[in-house]
């Protein structure tokens, strides 16, 4: 059959470019290897040329995929799956990397860009580093090959999978129609991902991932070429760039979760979040050990190990999030594309390579016999790096429970209170790291005298202790570990500020580390206070508390708000006043009032909303009021989304015994009594009839009582009918349907007119105190690291 309107050429072109990029990367890897072995510039030139070709084809395939997305070529599964006709063009990037294939292309893209930067200036490292670089590109390109080799499908390509050939859909009758494209729309982008964070977060994170490759490649070539010390000089600035970019990417993820997702916070210890944090922790440790080595010539093995582990952890994270192994344990891992074998091979290849390289060169590594003095900068930096490594280990081990289950056939699941579990481990680690951060720069390399050192430090120690005690008292901290962290994070801020003042003298380039450390201190402090003292103020204060359910009441964190009613919440009075439909968003207008002197003043309005998407599911999104010293974060946890229709009834059935209650949208129904009757108003009762009446009391929300009667009639022992109780002004109809003599319960059908139902929402509101400290810390840390990078680059030139 000839299908009409398909654009098969772009897929073929894209596929050709993928193949070309794969082959060119392979050729480049081979040529650089030869170039390294034979120290031959000719091979190196070939390698460079192939890498350029690889880069061009990578740019080309990315261009083709964008072209296909922009022009809505839904004949391609990837385009159909990730975009739709009504999607605004600004989300085109989000569509591009929503899927595994696109995000692999993003990663390949960054590696290609970085490789070209390294190639820009030839050095003795070019051949060996680029050989490693190209080998990574071979693996990554293979993930999007989409080609069957010897019966195995290698990779998944956005260019080769046509929608009508996709295994799930190939048999659909739709594809019997040659003109199927004329009526086809895409499935579209997940509404959760339709915001600007999705445009900036993935490229930053993937650039961070890509950047871990550079120090890894230098470290591996250092071992390979027996240049154990020299690799650090070119590698160190890149390690800091990696820290900066990867750190920014992770923090963006947190900010996204906080601003636009209804996670109720900025960090949830989700496996996917952990997987990106862990390589950052080890990279920070590794870069600090590299600093020790540059200044003192020790910690060589630690520096090599940590830098290499960082890259391996990136690969491991990739395996975790993309192989489908996380399964039930994460809400936002990628879908499984059946590539776990390939991903595992990629991971194992570099693990084995790393272990081999270290094992072979282990005896050869230069060592220092002398011990570091206790009060030296290098000793405490080393301890700090070790703590980071252990902290990373704790996180990744627990995140790996699904892997352990797979290997050992166990059925372990993450601890129930996951935040509590991680915090109980990570808070002590943070205490040690921040404490070391506070004083380590006051020490000199090679050792300081303890007396002058402690004298210099005493101000910071005492001042931070005083501030911490004041803060702990006013914020009512009780947990000793949290109080310790309060102290040490303030100490880190003050200690580094002191160091900043000491070395400032107008030289911006020298203060990178102290600015970054102050930033890190603020991040810890902000996270500690905002998460540790976050307060769910949305307790249910509505008048309908049912004491019989008291056991569940302790868990109350949601507030029922009926439209028009005003209820106290925290120090505010809140009122749900309107629902507004804006395109696909249903916004709920929540007014916040404050009691002032005599009256009540409206202070602000929030619009948490639900994004309506019949195809993909509805997504609630929060709205947050930012104050300087706290945020008020709200989201709608439940709302009836359909527009109520007049004349349409919602019905349900209930079994009730005498004195049971049932809850209606406009009041509470109480079954007062059941009794036989001889006559019913306006109804004829025949002599043989058995008629039973149910007397209800209906209490409306103004606590006014209405009596209602419903009847159940049995005629000639076989024919059953009922006379419902109708309360027209409340849109209510109650039918008495049957009696169960054993349980003495009666069956009631409750019908409520939709238009008469109360419009209500269930709201959750959380106060995050001092969360701005966290964001301030993020900005400072990025600025500080940036200054440090610039400084390192300058030092390299000298």
């Amino acid at each position: 059959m000839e299908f009409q309107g398909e654009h098969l050429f772009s897929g073929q072109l894209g596929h050709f470019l993928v193949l070309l990029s794969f082959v060119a990367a392979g050729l480049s890897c081979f040529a650089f290897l030869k170039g390294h072995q034979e120290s031959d510039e000719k091979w190196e030139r070939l390698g460079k040329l192939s890498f350029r070709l690889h880069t061009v084809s990578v740019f080309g395939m990315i261009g083709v995929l964008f072209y296909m997305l922009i022009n809505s070529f839904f004949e391609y599964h990837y385009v159909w799956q990730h975009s739709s006709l009504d999607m605004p063009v600004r989300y085109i990037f989000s569509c591009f990397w929503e899927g595994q294939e696109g995000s692999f292309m993003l990663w390949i893209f960054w590696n290609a860009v970085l490789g070209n930067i390294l190639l820009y200036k030839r050095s003795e490292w070019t051949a060996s580093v680029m050989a490693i670089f190209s080998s990574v590109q071979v693996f990554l390109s293979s993930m999007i090959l989409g080609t069957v080799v010897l019966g195995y499908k290698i990779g998944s390509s956005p260019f080769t999978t046509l929608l009508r050939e996709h295994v799930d859909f190939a048999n659909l009758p739709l594809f019997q129609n040659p003109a199927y494209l004329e009526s086809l729309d895409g499935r579209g982008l997940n509404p959760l991902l339709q915001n600007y964070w999705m445009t900036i977060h993935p490229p930053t994170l993937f650039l961070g991932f890509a950047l871990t490759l550079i120090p890894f490649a230098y470290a591996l070539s250092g071992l390979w070429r027996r240049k154990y010390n020299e690799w650090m000089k070119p590698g160190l600035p890149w390690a800091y760039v990696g820290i900066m970019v990867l750190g920014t990417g992770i923090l963006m993820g947190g900010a996204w979760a906080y601003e636009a997702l209804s996670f109720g916070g900025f960090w949830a210890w989700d496996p996917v979040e952990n997987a990106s944090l862990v390589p950052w922790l080890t990279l920070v440790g590794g870069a600090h050990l590299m600093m020790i080595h540059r200044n003192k010539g020790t910690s060589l093995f630690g520096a090599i190990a940590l830098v290499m582990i960082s890259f391996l952890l990136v690969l491991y994270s990739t395996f975790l999030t993309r192989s489908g192994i996380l399964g039930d344990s994460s809400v936002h891992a990628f879908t499984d594309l059946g590539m776990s074998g390939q991903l595992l091979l990629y991971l194992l290849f570099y693990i084995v390579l790393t272990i081999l390289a270290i094992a072979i060169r282990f005896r050869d590594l230069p060592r220092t016999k002398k011990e570091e003095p206790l009060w030296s900068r290098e000793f405490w930096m080393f301890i700090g790096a070790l703590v980071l490594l252990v902290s990373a280990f704790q996180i990744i081990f627990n995140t790996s429970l699904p892997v352990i289950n797979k290997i050992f056939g166990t059925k372990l699941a993450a601890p129930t209170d996951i935040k509590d579990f991680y915090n109980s481990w990570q808070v002590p680690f943070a205490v040690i790291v921040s404490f070391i951060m506070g004083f380590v720069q006051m020490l000199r390399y090679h050792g300081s005298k303890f007396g002058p050192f402690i004298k210099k430090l005493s101000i910071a120690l005492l001042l931070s202790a005083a501030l911490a005690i004041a803060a702990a008292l006013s914020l009512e901290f009780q947990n000793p570990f949290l109080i310790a962290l309060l102290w040490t994070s303030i100490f880190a801020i003050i200690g580094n500020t002191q160091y900043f003042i000491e070395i400032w003298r107008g030289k911006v380039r020298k203060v990178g580390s102290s600015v970054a450390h102050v930033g890190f201190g603020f991040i810890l402090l902000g996270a500690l206070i905002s998460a540790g003292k976050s307060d769910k103020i949305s307790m249910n204060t509505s008048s309908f508390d049912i004491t019989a359910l008291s056991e569940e009441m302790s868990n109350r964190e949601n507030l029922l708000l009926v439209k028009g009613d005003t209820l106290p919440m925290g120090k505010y009075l809140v009122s749900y006043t309107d629902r507004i439909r804006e395109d696909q968003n249903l916004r709920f207008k929540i007014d916040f009032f404050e009691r002032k002197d005599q009256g009540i003043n409206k202070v602000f309005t929030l619009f948490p909303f639900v994004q309506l998407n019949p195809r993909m599911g509805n997504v609630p999104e929060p709205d947050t009021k930012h104050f300087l010293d706290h945020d008020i974060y709200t989201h709608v946890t439940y709302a009836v989304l359909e527009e109520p229709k007049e004349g349409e009834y919602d019905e349900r059935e209930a079994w009730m015994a005498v004195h049971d209650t049932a809850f209606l949208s406009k009041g509470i129904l109480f079954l007062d009594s059941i009794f036989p009757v001889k006559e019913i108003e306006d109804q004829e009762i025949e002599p043989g009839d058995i008629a039973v009446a149910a007397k209800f009391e209906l209490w409306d929300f103004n606590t006014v009582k209405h009596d209602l009667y419903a009847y159940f009639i049995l005629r000639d022992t076989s024919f059953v009918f009922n006379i419902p109780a109708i309360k027209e002004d409340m849109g209510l109809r109650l039918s008495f349907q049957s009696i169960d003599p054993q349980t003495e319960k009666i069956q009631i059908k409750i019908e409520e007119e939709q238009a008469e139902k109360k419009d209500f929402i269930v709201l959750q509101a959380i106060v995050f105190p001092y969360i701005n400290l966290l964001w301030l810390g993020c900005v400072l840390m990025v600025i500080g690291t940036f200054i440090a990078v610039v400084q390192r680059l300058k030092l390299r030139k000298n």
Partner: protein
Amino acid sequence: MKKLHIVGIVVIAVAIGAIISSLSDSSTYANFEEAFATPESEFHVVGTLNRDKASVYEPEVNPDLFTFYMVDREGEERQVDLLKSKPQDFERSEQIVLIGQAKGEVFRATDILLKCPSKYNDGNPEETGKES
């Protein structure tokens, strides 16, 4: 003994501690039979919603209580009390992971993870026709 040896021993001890705590604090994936055999201890139970039985959410009474019936992977059905608000789009869920404990005849869940076909799988081209 060198300082670094002490540090090394401490590091290894903490790492072992981390492993032990991960393994001992962990909850377990189980079915209803196992969960009800040891009531009041934490389990993760995977299953699907029984759509034939009514699920009840009455926020007017308690916005933090949602009751429904779930069938686990072995086919056993139990009433579930979720101590949270009803998740939006609950009816669409394809798979449910409950985190909680058995209490009497009821499984009391403190948390829930939903996998919705729309968000995680492919949907169907037949349903994505152009809106005319």
